């Protein structure tokens, strides 16, 4: 609702082609993030998702006569924590206002929100983009407000039903500046914001259940021109849809302008089935919300020491964690970025890497573990192979007990059959052969069997690879490839 209009970006974003030349798309997001809290913002009712309709409705939520809101201290704490996580200014005094409009799923006829004095002021989010580029997106504000209930229009031929379970649930509206310049940036920003609130434990970021949704403001301009008229696309509930809605809307606006038309400031709806945006209401039809301070609530005064005590409990956030991973484990930016995207993944990685080679652990987790999890559509917490087990595999690779190839086999067995990787290696005799005698025997046998190739290898050292393969095959893959390689080179008389 409270749209930011001043951009802090000075660089030019990627441009799109139109019939009359290049266009720049300007995007700002208003993200509604449901506060992770057991109870609603102003009533003691449960904020749990998925209950029977109207199972979590107090007299306050139903706006019964004479009922009064009482602020939930924990929700305030969560908003402050989020603000601190966004490196934003925490306002020591903020005010709850009433936003007045009639709708059956808004029982009081007004939503309690924050209008002129939000709890959190300006902050910023650093967004990593592919290719190692990063942008800083300005946060204009964060405020607390109530969610509305839900109207059910498909339950009866003539009537609508109302479910008030969500009515009064605490939301944080996080308003970005119009600092995003492409659908890719918009989706990446949303992803980063989601990671931050999940790290903080202030929102579960579950977009399917509606815990996070975005209003997307889009306008287009010729590079260097003033900001164009924006349209607000309401309630987009996935990163993919955000990206798609931006692309669709930018193209639509360019087509309108290039066709000689003008963009009307309006609220639009994103239809994910048809993949298009449609007009909901124009500026003229916009509600007059008649905001005024809610006289049932005192100004929200925050104690400086209390804010400081919340600051002390903040977890390490993605940016800091990424920097530390690069520093402590020697990881590259990409691997570190992938690992910190989810707090659970980062924690998992650290358990795997504990006392081991960090790079090796990162390589293993990012490529083997994540690869397999993605394939199966599982989250890190659902991994059948524990961090301890993965760590054991990494240890065995590190000390040469098994080769990387065997490690994959061991992982596969642990994944499908379970079991301790060390035992798997021992019981199945997968231990890498490092015994020089055994390797030498195999090497000699292969050279003896292929005298012609051995001769050629002297002139063409690359052929050594073929010999390695033969020896590995002969040893059932258990020979240490490094040792085999060195011995072959020596025996074939290859220098270097």
């Amino acid at each position, binding site marked *: 609702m409270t749209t930011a209009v001043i951009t802090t970006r000075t660089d030019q974003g990627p441009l799109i082609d139109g019939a009359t030349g290049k266009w720049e798309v300007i995007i700002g997001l208003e993200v509604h993030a449901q506060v992770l809290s057991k109870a609603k913002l102003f009533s003691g009712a449960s904020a749990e998702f998925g209950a029977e309709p109207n199972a979590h409705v107090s007299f306050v939520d139903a706006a019964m006569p*004479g009922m009064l809101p009482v602020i939930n201290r924990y929700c305030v704490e969560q908003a402050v924590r989020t603000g601190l996580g966004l490196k934003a200014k925490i306002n020591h005094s903020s005010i709850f206002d009433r936003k007045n409009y*009639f709708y059956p799923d808004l029982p009081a006829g007004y939503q309690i929100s924050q209008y002129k004095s939000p709890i959190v002021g300006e902050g910023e989010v650093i967004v990593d983009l592919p290719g190692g580029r990063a942008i800083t997106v300005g946060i204009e504000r964060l405020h607390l407000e109530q969610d509305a209930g839900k109207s059910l229009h498909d339950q009866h031929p003539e009537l609508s039903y109302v479910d008030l379970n969500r009515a009064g649930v605490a939301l944080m509206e996080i308003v970005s500046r119009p600092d995003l310049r492409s659908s890719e940036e918009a989706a990446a920003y949303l992803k980063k914001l989601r990671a931050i609130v999940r790290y903080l434990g202030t929102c579960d970021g579950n977009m399917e259940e509606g815990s996070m949704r975005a209003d997307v403001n889009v306008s287009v301009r010729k590079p260097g021109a003033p900001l164009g008229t924006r349209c607000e696309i309401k309630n987009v509930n996935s990163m993919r849809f955000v990206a798609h809605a931006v692309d669709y809307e930018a193209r639509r606006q360019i087509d309108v302008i290039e066709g000689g038309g003008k963009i009307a400031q309006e609220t639009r709806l994103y239809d994910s089935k048809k993949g298009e945006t449609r007009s909901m209401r124009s500026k003229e039809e916009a509600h*007059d919300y008649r905001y005024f301070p809610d006289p*049932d609530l005192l100004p929200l005064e925050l104690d400086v020491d209390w804010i400081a005590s919340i600051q002390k409990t903040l977890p390490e956030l993605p940016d800091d964690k990424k920097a530390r991973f690069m520093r402590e484990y020697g990881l590259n930016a990409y691997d570190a970025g992938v690992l910190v995207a989810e707090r659970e993944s980062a924690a998992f990685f650290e358990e795997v890497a504990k006392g081991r080679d960090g790079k090796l652990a990162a390589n293993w987790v990012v490529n083997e573990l994540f690869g397999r999890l993605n394939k199966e559509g599982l989250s890190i917490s659902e991994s059948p192979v524990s961090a301890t087990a993965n760590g054991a595999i990494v240890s065995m690779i590190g000390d040469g007990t098994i080769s990387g190839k065997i490690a994959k086999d061991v992982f596969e067995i642990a994944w499908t059959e379970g079991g301790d990787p060390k035992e798997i290696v021992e019981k199945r005799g997968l231990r890498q052969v490092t015994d020089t005698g055994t390797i030498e025997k195999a090497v000699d046998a292969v050279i003896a069997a292929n005298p012609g190739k051995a001769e050629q290898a002297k002139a063409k050292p690359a052929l050594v690879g073929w010999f390695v393969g033969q020896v590995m095959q002969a040893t059932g893959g258990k020979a240490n490839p490094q040792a085999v390689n060195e011995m072959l080179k020596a025996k074939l008389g290859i220098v270097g």
Partner: protein
Amino acid sequence: MSDLTGLTIVEARDGLRKKSFSARELADAHIKAIEKGRALNAFVTETPDLARKMALESDRRIASGEARPLEGLPLGIKDLFCTKGVLTTAGSHILDGFKPPYESTVTRNLWDAGAVMLGKLNMDEFAMGSSNETSYYGPVTNPWRRKGANTKLVPGGSSGGSAASVAARMVLGATGTDTGGSIRQPAAVTGIAGIKPTYGRCSRWGIVAFASSLDQAGPMARTVRDCAIMLKTMASHDPLDSTSVDMRVPDYELAMTGEVRGLRVGIPKEYRLDGMPGEIETLWQKGIAWLRDAGAEIVDVSLPHTKYALPAYYIVAPAEASSNLARYDGVRFGLRVPGKDITSMYENTRAAGFGREVQRRILIGTYVLSAGYYDAYYIKAQKLRSLIARDFDEAFEKVDVLLTPTAPGPAFGIGEKTDDPISMYLNDVFTVTVNLAGLPGLSVPAGLNDEGLPLGLQLIGKAFDEGTLFRVGEVIEKAAGPTSRPQAWWEV
């Protein structure tokens, strides 16, 4: 047994303790008085069965030595307080059939202290009015009549049913609410006492909201001391009302020493209005003389922003009301008038459910909050409100209490002012300032005018200094002479 309905709360409390009569007898006497007084239309709902049941429990407790502070005292409740399982209408058609599944904090406090509920009292619709003529349940008639005349007079408002039932001896005391004078003005024109406590002293939880930043519950009774006793129980800190104040409730009776020597009483010159009836000026002078004679020091003070109070009030109160009354939409409770779609259902319901005065204030309130008008009206009114509060702060540096008339005139005839909202609004000219500043105000019965109609004097105190108001109020009450009683012309 003498007339039990003629007792004050103090007398009834003593009589019950001494077992001179039972709570059941006391309740029955009042139930009978209510039946005989139906012509006054003071009640929307009578609850005699509930009253008898509560009285029996009181008798049991008195017998077993477990009597609570208000044990067995029968009271009436303004129909703005939600009472569990008992119809609560706020004087409005739109709350048809509404029986709250909860009890307001103030009434809960009363019942927990042993008080007995006689029923729900008529009032101006949503407490919007100064004559009890805006009620969907019809006007209440003042028990007082002009000497030698049969003209039906209004009991004031919005707590008109409360005032009339107390004055007519149908209840020992009643709850009222006061947003701009709705306790004090009806108390004054029916010859009883009533106090609007400091904002935040009584919980607003469970009271149908009119203007949240101004609404405050308070007692109405036949003596100042009876009000003090009731308020002691009604007031509390309530975690369910964020604006209720976490402060100990004093025993107000202890403050009532009868002593005002050395007390500085301020007389605000701005309360002397052009065209004010002579009898009001005379009354005021009498009050000043009584207090001076009792040893108080009279000090002239100025409250320069007083003239802005009424306009500021008629912006702030309707603004809040327009939002507070949005919940009456026909969706969840009360009246629903069907329509072809949701918007027409809203329109039909609210057009049928709200009376003209409520509609007028919703329109005013919606207007002053609208884009483009908010700064010019609402913000300006809030600034005036701060200035008015500052006037009082400055005055209270010089004086302990202020003395003013309560209302600009005595009770007027039913229908006399209904076509003229401005003249109706002027009834609150001396009382709204107190709500805007959040201060306590007590109306004390101060005798009858030449026509035999009661008039009241108002004492305004510092925040949370209700004790001083009761102390000074009782001195005025005594000086004014014994409480007169209206002729029971209404009894059938």
